[in-house]
């Protein structure tokens, strides 16, 4: 085990881009998330049920997309316990076909910094196949 380096407020500037990441999402990920989160809604693992309610195929849990995307922030900060606020709108479902699954592309940018509180706000852009799947996705981190 090793102690991680936590980003300091003085190291952060407005407009700064965070390292981007592509995150694969397969049916196996959906089943794992269903079990770990307790959200066992059938539309996340059975395509017949998903199609019966008008979806093109099985879709990812919005909360899985939200939970996976914030890793861009936590890895950049170096301490996952520093995220004090995190919110989003679910604008478009992430369709996860049996073959190949889906890929989330996550980018982040520091939009505001507050020297008083030493808090920084990161705006995340999360797309799947070029479509924006999360809207107004923002995380606030508390730094030292």
């Amino acid at each position, binding site marked *: *085990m090793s102690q991680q380096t936590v980003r300091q407020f003085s190291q952060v500037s407005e407009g700064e881009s965070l390292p981007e990441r592509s995150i694969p999402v397969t049916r196996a990920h959906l089943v794992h998330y269903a079990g770990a989160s307790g959200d066992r809604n059938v539309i996340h693992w059975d395509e017949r049920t998903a199609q019966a309610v008008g979806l093109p195929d099985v879709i990812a849990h919005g909360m899985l997309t939200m939970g996976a995307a914030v890793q861009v922030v936590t890895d950049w900060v170096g301490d996952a316990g520093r995220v004090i606020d995190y919110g989003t709108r679910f604008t478009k479902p992430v369709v996860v076909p049996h073959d190949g699954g889906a890929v989330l592309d996550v980018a982040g940018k520091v939009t505001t910094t507050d020297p008083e509180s030493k808090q920084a706000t990161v705006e995340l852009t999360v797309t799947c196949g070029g479509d924006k799947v999360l809207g107004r996705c923002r995380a606030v981190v508390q730094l030292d």
Partner: protein
Amino acid sequence: MAVNEDFQGRSYDPTTPFDVGREHIRDFAAAVGATDPIHHDVEAARAAGYADLVAPPTFAVIPGQRTDAQFVADPDAGVDYTRVVHGEQRFTHHRPIVAGDELRGVLHIDAIRAAGGHQMVTMRSEIIDAQDQPVATSLSTIVVRGGE
């Protein structure tokens, strides 16, 4: 079936305790791809200043949705779950959730409003610990699609 607007403004008693376990944190972290050692390694979490394993930022959805279920699963509330879509979600962390926490949720139905043939319900779960201290606020908006 439509959402019963009489529930707007309603508040509930605290839920029964939800015990946060280490293996649950590890499993949830793995499911969302969270590799920070503070989710997995107790020594790393303690070295970083935490009492025990730290839950990932969206772990609060679990006690949050258990709290929300008091409304969503209440037949009198009139929520047809087959028509529910998650619209928005926000977590405000008053402190990180750690293994060993005994959490309860206090549910408030902040808003029920009509929007373009649908109904939008905003549920606020105030997550508190065994000492009644605030841990997290989960703000969840669901969209209940109107009938065709």
